[in-house]
């Protein structure tokens, strides 16, 4: 059959950031993939050079609408390291609680999106309802549902009252119960078994060669997790485990994320029950001495890195951000090769990309005989139909 170029992107409301793929397909099989991630470049790194440390934190909170706490924590912990200051333990625990709640709502969001892409909309409704409970917890603690505004250089901006801690602890059993149910479901539910197993497979060697991070890497048996490898905030004090899996496919990535949900709930419970007393912030100097910090953080999607240069002023000389999604693209491009066109939505969704995808797909026959257009929804529908037919045959 003739090779066909399928441009996908750049806009789709279900995912978070715009990206454009040019998928070269031979019939139903994918041959090659090129990508363009330019659509959401807002010059944040340049803007960060113009603002002092107080003003740059709210800016970085807006790098991403899901990992908003990740971007501020990685930055403030880098600046605190450059200033050589230690923040109080209570502040570290509060940062950890928010970070893990963020991971829970992000993984639940991912699980819902993945369920939606395979046409299992009931699960999508369930996970997003449970995610609401997590966002309510975040709202009660920080005052905000998305950009929590809890971090500042030198500590956190809001303390937790005993009533807030009790209210949060009361919400945990329900979530623990729900997540145990999902774990059970993944191993039994036929739709998930058919659509996740063996799809987008990456071996351990592939992962290391292609530099994938986060749950994508851990699902192939690579145990890299910055929370263990280079512990920050309260992770060294809290009992928890790195979750890995050996399936290496979308199914494995689902199992890893569900395992991480359980670990995160355990961390949140521990931090709430053992919250140290004391102040929540310290006064820091205005400026940071000349230095170079490589600040690493385990965001929900994987290793997030802020490279920070300081130069004796109250502004950064350079802030270089490497997001987990950028690190994972190379692996997506490889894991899609030889897969079915029908599997694009679920494989792309499996790395939990921070991208907003397609409103329109143009299918162009390379001979120029035929041009058709397809929306992402139609591609998803094509995926479901493809497997439905195959199931019957």
């Amino acid at each position, binding site marked *: 059959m003739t090779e066909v170029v399928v441009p996908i992107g750049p806009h789709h409301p279900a995912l978070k950031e715009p990206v454009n793929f040019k998928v070269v397909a031979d019939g139903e099989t994918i041959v090659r993939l090129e*990508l*363009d*991630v*330019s*659509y959401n*470049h807002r*010059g944040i*790194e*340049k803007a960060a050079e113009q603002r002092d440390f107080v003003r740059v934190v709210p800016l970085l909170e807006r790098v991403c609408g899901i990992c908003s706490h990740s971007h501020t924590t990685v930055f403030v912990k880098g600046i605190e390291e450059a200033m050589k200051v230690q923040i109080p333990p209570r502040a570290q625990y509060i940062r950890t609680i928010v970070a893990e709640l963020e991971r829970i709502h992000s993984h639940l969001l991912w699980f819902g999106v993945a369920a939606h892409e395979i046409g299992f909309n009931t699960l999508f409704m369930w996970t997003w309802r449970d995610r609401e409970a997590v966002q309510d917890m975040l709202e009660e603690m920080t005052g905000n549902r998305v950009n929590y505004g809890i971090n500042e250089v030198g500590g956190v901006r809001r303390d937790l009252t005993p009533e807030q801690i009790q209210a949060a602890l009361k919400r945990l059993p329900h979530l623990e119960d729900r997540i145990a149910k999902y774990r059970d479901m993944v191993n039994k539910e036929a739709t998930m078994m058919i659509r996740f197993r063996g799809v987008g497979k990456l071996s351990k060697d592939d992962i*290391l*060669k*292609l*530099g994938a991070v986060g749950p994508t890497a851990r699902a192939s048996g690579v145990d*890299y997790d910055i929370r263990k*490898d*280079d512990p920050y905030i309260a992770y060294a004090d809290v009992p928890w485990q790195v979750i890995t899996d050996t399936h290496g496919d979308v199914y494995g990535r689902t199992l890893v994320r569900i395992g991480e949900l359980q670990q995160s709930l355990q961390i949140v419970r521990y931090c709430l029950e053992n919250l140290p007393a004391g102040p929540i912030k310290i006064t820091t100097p205005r400026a940071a001495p000349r230095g*170079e910090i*490589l600040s*690493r953080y385990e965001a929900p999607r994987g*290793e997030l*890195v802020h*490279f920070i*240069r300081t130069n004796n002023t109250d502004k950064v*000389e*350079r802030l*270089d951000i*490497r997001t987990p999604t*950028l*690190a994972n*693209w*190379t692996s997506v491009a490889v894991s899609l090769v030889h897969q079915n066109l029908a599997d694009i939505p679920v494989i792309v969704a499996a790395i939990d990309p921070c991208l907003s995808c397609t409103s329109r797909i143009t299918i162009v026959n390379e001979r120029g005989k035929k041009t058709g257009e397809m929306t992402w929804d139609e591609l998803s529908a094509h995926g479901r139909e493809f497997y439905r037919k195959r199931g019957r045959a």
Partner: protein
Amino acid sequence: MSELLKVEQVAKAMEGLGTVDAMKPNRIRVATTPAKVKEAVQRALKDLKCDHVVQIAAVDNGKSFELIYNLTGPHHTVVSILLELPRDKPEVPTASDLLPPAGLYERQIHDLLGIVFVGHPNLKRIILNEDWPENEFPMRKDWKPNPNTFYGGVHTEEAK
């Protein structure tokens, strides 16, 4: 979990390539030159068992450009390979053949700072919008937006 790398180990592996110093117990920096960077990356992969590229950081320090290849591995130590590039001829051999994920990172650096990675198979625009003018590199310290240049988006009366 294996032990952190020691400065002496790194110094031995990087012999003849440049100076080695520990910035933190788990971060060791090797300062080398553009001509020797591939050799340094190769030795980090082979002799120091690095298997993960954390990031390639690119800095404009006002006088020259700096590239920092941050690599890590099962030893959980970050090996930072630092090199400086002159402003008038910012060229360095690509590392994308040794480190596949570096391909994307190098394209991004090429877009923002105009550093040319010699031998890169596909050094096309990735992070700036498609209507961004050629030869304008926004992350350079001496870059100023020109009021008469069109930087993308919707054409307005004033921009014409």
